[in-house]
């Protein structure tokens, strides 16, 4: 039997690093302090902001929305809105969308749903099918990640966001860190900072990750204690991703050696500060404007437009891409 280290009531959570136990009330206080410390430490928000929260309808993003709405009540200059990207994944997104709308209504938050179908003309399920038929070498998560990030930036900007907050937690961050080490992708590791941008591009919305130092177990507990835990629905494409295996390995290490996850995060922050000093070696060239769609891009044509071209789901701009590719 473990009791709260502060008040002696039954514990709902034990921090395995400090050994401290927390009851429901004191866990929520611990959680709040930890997120506020993260926000302050990395200077995520100013006194006047329109914060758009990227919400998938999963437990982490619903928790972030819930937390930020509560926090914003203490900051008069903040406006909170929510944005959900509907990729069009049958048997998955329709359920998380329901939870999203319910929570937005309960919290009285303005929201926007932007779909792949609306912006690209096809759902993710259709895109994956086309990709397979054309024998393109991409995994489902590649299309999804590129198109989702593209729309998050574009639609958040259209909504008037001064900052876009995503619910990436400590576990997500270190998993991506390890994946990028495996891929030798140091430019992507630089983007794993708690605050990214504003890059030198007027169309890029600054991004922050308020759950950067929060374990996924803690965000899950927050969601359960606040009645936000959704029906457990798993993306049907998730198991095709290498992340699934890396997550299991890191969790096994954490079980045997508590503190492994925080150590990995410290390593990440250290390497980001080293890489910042060698930016030119890591990032090739300045941020550009995609010659097809006008959005920020690392290359002359952004990844989303290249995918659309390769998939053959681009109409008017097709010739322009061919001209540009020919120029190279």
């Amino acid at each position, binding site marked *: 039997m*473990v009791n709260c280290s502060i008040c002696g009531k039954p514990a709902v959570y034990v921090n395995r690093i400090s050994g401290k136990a927390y009851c429901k009330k004191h866990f929520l206080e611990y959680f709040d302090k930890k997120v506020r410390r993260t926000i302050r430490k990395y200077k995520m928000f100013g006194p006047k902001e329109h914060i758009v929260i990227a919400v998938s309808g999963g437990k982490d993003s619903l928790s972030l929305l819930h937390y930020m709405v509560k926090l914003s009540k203490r900051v008069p200059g903040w406006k909170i809105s929510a944005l959900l990207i509907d990729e069009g994944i049958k048997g998955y997104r329709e359920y998380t969308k329901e939870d999203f709308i319910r929570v937005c209504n309960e919290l009285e938050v303005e929201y926007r749903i932007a779909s792949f179908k609306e912006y690209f003309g096809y759902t993710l399920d259709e895109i994956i099918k086309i990709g397979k038929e054309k024998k393109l070498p991409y995994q489902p998560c590649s299309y999804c990640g590129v198109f989702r990030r593209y729309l998050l930036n574009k639609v958040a900007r259209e909504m008037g966001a001064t900052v876009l907050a995503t619910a990436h937690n400590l576990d997500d961050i270190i998993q991506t860190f390890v994946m990028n080490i495996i891929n030798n992708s140091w430019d992507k590791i630089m983007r794993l900072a708690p605050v990214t941008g504003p890059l030198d591009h007027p169309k890029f919305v600054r991004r922050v990750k308020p759950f950067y130092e929060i374990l996924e177990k803690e965000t*899950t507990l927050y969601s*359960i204690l606040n009645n936000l*835990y959704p029906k*457990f629905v798993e993306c049907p494409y998730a198991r095709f991703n290498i992340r699934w295996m890396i997550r299991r390995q890191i*969790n096994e290490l954490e*079980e045997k050696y508590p503190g492994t996850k925080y150590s990995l995060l410290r390593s990440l922050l250290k390497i980001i500060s080293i890489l910042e000093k060698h930016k030119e070696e890591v990032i090739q060239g300045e941020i550009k404007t995609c010659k097809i769609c006008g959005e920020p891009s690392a290359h002359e044509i952004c990844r989303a437009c290249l995918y659309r071209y390769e998939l053959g789901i681009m109409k008017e701009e097709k010739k322009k891409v061919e001209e540009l590719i020919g120029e190279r």
Partner: protein
Amino acid sequence: MFYSYGVTKVVIIRIVGGSKEWKISLGQERIRVKELLEKIGLLSNEYVVVKNGQVVSEEKTVSDDDEIVLYPVVSGG
């Protein structure tokens, strides 16, 4: 400990949403949630545990007749 097939007292462990269920008889044994999960091959940092309707830490003890519901921490997508 043995896996129960009859009317013996057991701990019932379920993953929320009902995708999996285990019935385990502990007899006189009282073990921690963390150890119970180990017995069925699960990692305690991958689940939030609800025992008889109350969220508990992984250090809480469990015995026969308890009902455990596991909320997965890892989500896909």
